[in-house]
């Protein structure tokens, strides 16, 4: 069998295994190893199985994920975040879907701290979902808004994805960051519209919060000083250059712990629960990340991506047609691959094509980042959805979260159409 066929078969096998309730991480690993075995032989397959778990996990940059998870869990278990949503509730009560919008806005704020969208979803998810549940929000829209909000994390700077694109395409990272900021805020705007649209069609899913008096508002707002202090310390330290985006996670967890102890709101069992919750979420997530890494290797080895690139080139399309095909390809890749792997695999194919058609590199970089981030919330492999599932699995099923994503996916597609229509203006 030729490598391309093996690559395609692997895709099908992956879907079948996941459909039959084989754990997703295990499915990815099994399919990748069999595929690599088929293409290159048993020895390379065993070699990858033995070395990639180590090389893939032994990463300084990844350490921000468990640290931001821990920060979120401690803040949640010690009641630090309860006040935050009280405050959001009193201030946004006039808006339909106020809590969902508040968590989207919160995710955008968090995005300024975190370079990865998984960390962003994890931190906001643990805080926001229980609050929305308490207010009788429909859990689909509640979880969907946080999973989608997380994708803003890799658009608003700092962004690991945009830095990598800048290096690979030799374009200005400052310009990419500025573009990322614009598209991140535009995503926030479109997501808010999606919430309002859901409210317009199904108002019962987003029950309105009782209005408050001005006095209540300030009283409740004053109670959230610990959270504001936490965010200020993390953001302040980051922008003052005291620590990097990676270190910010550990610092945030430490701050949350210190605040919980100082306010005497973190009991021994809260503390233990925070640790176990973080451990379980890590156990569920990293094995999938390793699986996705292995699957990226299989795709690279099969030449599937190269073949697709040549196919697109041979179609001889105009610029718009070409962009549409590339958008579809990225949406399809995003269903299965993690963003950094997909980015590195595809840039060598598409950058020369884009240059030949005179498409601006910065604009293309922002588009690719946006498309890959959409992949974080599309089935079957949507890491943001998985992380939300791991923090909220006591009351929501995976497929319910994927259903909750739909309005936000529609908003994303609308945003991409907007980007295409305004391409010449930037």
């Amino acid at each position: 069998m030729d490598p391309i066929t093996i690559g395609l078969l692997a895709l099908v096998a992956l879907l079948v295994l996941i459909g039959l309730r084989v754990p997703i991480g295990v499915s990815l690993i099994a399919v990748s190893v069999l595929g690599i075995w088929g293409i290159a032989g048993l020895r390379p397959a065993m070699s990858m199985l033995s070395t990639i778990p180590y090389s893939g996990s032994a990463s300084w940059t990844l350490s921000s994920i468990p640290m931001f998870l821990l920060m979120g869990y401690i803040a949640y278990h010690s009641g630090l975040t309860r006040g935050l949503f009280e405050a959001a509730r009193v201030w946004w009560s006039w808006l339909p879907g106020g809590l969902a919008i508040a968590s989207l806005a919160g995710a955008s704020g968090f995005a300024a701290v975190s370079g990865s969208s998984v960390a962003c979803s994890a931190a906001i998810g643990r805080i926001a979902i229980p609050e929305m549940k308490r207010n009788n929000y429909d859990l689909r829209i509640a979880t969907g808004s946080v999973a989608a909000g997380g994708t803003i994390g890799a658009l608003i700077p700092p962004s690991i994805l945009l830095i990598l694109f800048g290096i690979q395409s030799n374009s200005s990272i400052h310009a990419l960051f500025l573009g990322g900021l614009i598209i991140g805020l535009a995503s926030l705007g479109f997501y808010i519209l999606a919430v309002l649209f859901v409210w317009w069609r199904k108002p019962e899913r987003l029950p309105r919060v009782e209005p408050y008096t001005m006095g209540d508002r300030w009283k409740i707002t004053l109670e959230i000083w610990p959270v504001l202090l936490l965010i200020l310390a993390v953001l302040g330290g980051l922008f003052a250059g005291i620590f990097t985006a990676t270190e910010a996670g550990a610092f945030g967890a430490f701050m949350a712990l210190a605040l919980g102890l100082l306010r005497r709101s973190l009991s021994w069992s809260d503390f233990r629960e925070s640790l176990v919750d973080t451990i379980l979420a890590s156990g569920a997530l990293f094995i999938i990340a390793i699986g996705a890494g292995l699957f990226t290797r299989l795709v690279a080895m099969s030449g599937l991506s190269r073949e697709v690139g040549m196919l697109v080139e041979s179609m001889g399309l105009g610029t718009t047609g070409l962009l549409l095909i590339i958008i579809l390809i990225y949406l399809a890749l995003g269903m299965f691959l993690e963003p950094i792997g997909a980015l590195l695999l595809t840039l060598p194919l598409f950058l020369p094509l884009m240059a030949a058609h005179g498409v601006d590199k910065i604009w293309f970089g922002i588009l690719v980042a946006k498309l890959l981030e959409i992949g974080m919330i599309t089935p079957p492999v949507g890491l943001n959805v998985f992380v939300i599932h791991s923090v909220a699995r006591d009351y929501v099923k995976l497929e319910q979260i994927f259903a909750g994503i739909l309005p936000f996916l529609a908003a994303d597609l609308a945003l991409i159409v907007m980007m295409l229509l305004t391409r010449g203006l930037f």
Partner: protein
Amino acid sequence: DTIRATSGFGPAHVLATVVYPEIGTRLEDFTEGAWDLQDTPSGLVAPNEMSSGLRDGVTEMGTLLMPYFPAEFPDAALPSELSIVGSGNLVISSAVTEYIATCPDCLAEFARNGQVYLGTDATPPYNLLTTEPVRSVEDVKGMRIRTGAPLYAGFVEAMGGEPTQLPSSELFESLSQGVIAGTFSANHEIIANRLGDVINYVTEVEEGVFNGAAAGTVSGILWMRMSPEDRAALARATQYGIAKGLVGFVEDAAKAREVEGIEFIEMDESLAAAKEAYNEERLAAAAGILTERGVEDAQAKIDRYIALVDKWEGLITEGMTYEALAELRYDEIFAKIDLGAYGS
């Protein structure tokens, strides 16, 4: 037959844009189409997986970064320890390649790890790339500077600065946020890694080069499949690729001077004195460091390497084309080796 190669540093790196395409073209040419090469610049094998990837045939040819595998290649890493010797990357790359290809202990290390060595590249000299000007040693004091190899960490420390290690993925951000005030890097990175956006000054201390990237490392599994003639063709093609890359580095370094908003500062006497003192100390200590790592007869090997650098200083001429350099490297090094027996 197609070689499954992994240049390993992403599609925009000189290795992927210049070196590996050139190796592929020349290989096809020298073997009259019997062999070609397909590079997957990233996604298949990461730099820190390269040694096992080549050993087990995940990839068949790739760039092996010596500093990532100090325990596997103590002898072959000897030239890295001496990267302060020599003036330009053309000379140093050629001297390193000749040294390793004719050093039995180094070749034994490659064989033990299932690999075959065909050449090393070298960057232009390293400078201080900073956000605040460094005009004398005084300015380095207390400055937090990112360093790659231990050699540079030692130099920064000797000048009273504060060396820090950071993954390259965090370099750009750390510079722009002021977590670090500078980096010890070569000028071509101003172009290749977009550092021009975040640094304002280059102090040209020209302290050594990076010569630890064995850009032409071949899997033993592939080598066994090749006839002596095929092996010769691959060895020769690899010299073309590396030579073209060396010239590309130099061109990028020259382009860096045209980037707006960067001041290039010549080093003053205090910096020159610090560099000289450090280099003397370093050279004197090198034999001890290498012996500690398990290198036998370290001083004799150091002397041999330095003699090879002198030899190549004499062989390489101003304005030499990359084709001429490639042929010279092949004639001087691999044409003299029995490639039927090499690598086993």
